[in-house]
């Protein structure tokens, strides 16, 4: 196998070993000892904290001059069903002045109540609604925690790993009825429109 060419990194931003380092340093100073855990992975410092410290951490990151993470990038969740605290809620914040990216992560189960950051970053309001919609995580103090992408009466949370997403089977010769157009479909199959349009 031919050798891989060297990886070139950005010249204007901070070097990869330091992305998010300001955030981890500030949070270690501010929050109680032992409640912050940070590790460096692929050039990004990832900080794990408990839900109860989240609001204080976010407001500190936003307002402190040494960090100034003003831009709310996004917030999402990763589902690891075999863990006890199955959800890994990830917050990404950007500091334009320092050209830095903070990665905060909160481990949560289905019953954990995570405080909402909508009061600090207005942009997180819609991201938290999307997390609630697709994963079912409740955020306390959210101004309007309702479904945002799916219909209001939808049951289930699709992005969880135990939710099976399926449309309809692909038609082969053994189930050729699925290949017929809806007007010709036999009535026992879903989607048949014969008789569906009543005309006077």
């Amino acid at each position, binding site marked *: 196998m031919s050798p891989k060419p060297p990886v070139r990194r950005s010249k204007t931003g901070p070097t990869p070993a330091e992305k998010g380092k300001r955030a981890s340093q500030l949070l270690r100073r501010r929050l109680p000892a032992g409640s912050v855990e940070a590790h460096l992975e692929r050039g990004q410092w990832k900080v794990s904290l408990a839900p109860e410290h989240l609001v204080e951490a976010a407001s500190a990151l936003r307002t402190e001059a040494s960090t100034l993470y003003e831009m709310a990038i996004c917030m999402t969740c990763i589902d690891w069903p075999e863990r006890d605290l199955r959800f890994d809620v990830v917050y990404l914040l950007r500091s334009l002045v320092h050209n830095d990216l903070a990665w905060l992560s909160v481990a949560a189960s289905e019953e954990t109540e995570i405080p909402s950051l909508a009061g600090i970053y207005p942009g997180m309001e819609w991201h938290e609604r999307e997390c609630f919609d697709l994963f079912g995580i409740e955020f306390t103090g959210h101004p309007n925690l309702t479904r945002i992408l*799916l219909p209001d009466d939808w049951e289930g949370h699709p992005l969880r790993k135990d939710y099976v*997403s399926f*449309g*309809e089977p692909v038609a082969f010769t053994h189930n050729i009825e699925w290949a017929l157009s*809806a007007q010709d479909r036999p009535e026992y199959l879903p989607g048949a429109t014969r008789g569906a*349009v009543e005309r006077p």
Partner: protein
Amino acid sequence: MGLRSADGGLVLPERVLAARAGAAKAPAIPGVIPSEQELADAAAQVGVFTTTVGKVIAWGRYSSLWPALFGLACCAIEMMGASNARYDLSRFGAEVFRASPRQADMMIVAGRVSQKMGPVLRQIYDQMPDPKWVISMGACASCGGIFNNYAIIQGVDKVVPVDVYIPGCPPRPEGLLDAVIKLQKKIAATPVSSVRA
């Protein structure tokens, strides 16, 4: 005047058949009974042509199809491309995209229909007055496309009856033009008084 036989074909009364047969055999006597060609020439001179009411109505309908704006996703961009200068949809009389479905007679469902959008699609279709036609543009509207999952309705014909399906992801603007032409031929072949099933 037509009666339908058991197999669905049209059965005409005997006197009508005899009259038609007789007319074809009547010879043209020069100066007394004009031939078909002479009749047609004389009519053209005074600006008259004969046809059936059905054909004229169908011609009027298919020459000025007014699409209801129903661009949902990527196919909508190609639909806009089809109505622009290079692939000119107004050659076929269909450039007047009406925002209100009450003023439209054709709905081009261009794009993927999600579960939340399905009832809205049906409501817009119901608001359109008769006669109305539906073109399902693209793979997602025809059968769900590449999205065989929880979020997309697998084919818009589960919600509204469709006349022409266009494959493609997205179909080229020429594909949409081809669909409009096919729809025009379908309208030309449809009897005026038929009820859509």
